[in-house]
């Protein structure tokens, strides 16, 4: 195992139980999919944390630029009418 070329990084997502979403929980280094899944199993499900694992190569994830945070997300700050709690319901409306 030579250190001249590092194995690619894989992001690990674990589904804690049936019905819940896969949640990002960390990353592993591995040479291929098969070992990435096994490494994820060995590193992140040692305490019965999951019933399903996704791994995806970190360099395949397209991420937003942190420098654009203001432009991307601040415009939503003053649009409180997008929250359901903004609207007052008549007393007669139930079950919402």
């Amino acid at each position, binding site marked *: *195992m030579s250190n001249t070329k590092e*194995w690619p990084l894989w992001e690990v997502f674990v589904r804690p139980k049936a019905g819940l979403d896969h949640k990002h929980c960390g990353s*592993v*280094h*591995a*040479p291929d999919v*098969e*070992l990435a899944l*096994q*490494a994820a199993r*060995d*590193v992140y499900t*040692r305490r019965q944390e999951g019933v399903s694992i996704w791994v995806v190569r970190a360099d395949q994830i397209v991420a937003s630029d942190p420098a654009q945070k203001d432009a991307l997300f601040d415009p939503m700050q003053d649009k409180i009418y997008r929250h359901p709690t903004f609207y007052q319901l008549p007393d007669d409306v139930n079950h919402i």
Partner: protein
Amino acid sequence: MGVMNALTTPSAAASVSFLLRIADGSLVLSQRLSEWCGHGPILEEDIALTNIALDLIGQARLLYTLAGAREGRGRDEDAFAYWRDEQEFTNPTLVELPNGDFGQSVLRTYLYTAYQLVLWQSLGASPDAELAAIAHKSAKETAYHCSHLAGWVIRLGDGSAESHQRLTRALDYLWPYTPELFTADAIDPQAAALESAWRATVAPVLAQATLTPPAASPFRATGKQGRHSEHMGYLLSEMQSLARAHPGAKW
């Protein structure tokens, strides 16, 4: 059903000697694997090997506890692991051999866990209900060990010229110790029956790894009879020294 059988036909229950033999195999291999803790080639594999070591300790604990109950002399798992001497351990020699490099460790562990795979399958059908339950539980974890390790054997055997050469050397070294697994005796008269299933498991993996086992040799290891290699004493002294220096110590 199994319980009734065990009660009505005492001979159906596995002997203490048989339980200790398979427990010793798990414990000693676990001790060897735990030597990799902190020394694995990469963090992920370090955890993988020590996970396997912990599973093996779990198997040994269940088997020692059952053996102690059947023996009826008040010996618990610690008494078996820490307070027996070399001649009383009856693991096959294969599992006590030094780790060597990563390839040799992986190959040895693969050869033994493939044996465990067929062993648990056969014991899962045992009329001894308690042993069958341990076999059922262990079969699941062993299936994972086997597939993880087979992956490495294939990757390294069919890898670079260097890794292929190392695996070839490791196979030449380890292979002559494998017939002992299937040597039948009074304690385990059925041992030979597992050989064909083991060969059928191992052969395709070795073939895919482009590895060829050496020709059969007349050499037979004798660890199962308590006659061990020169490596066993060192292994035990490391494993047992703490418990013997502080008898009865608790975490």
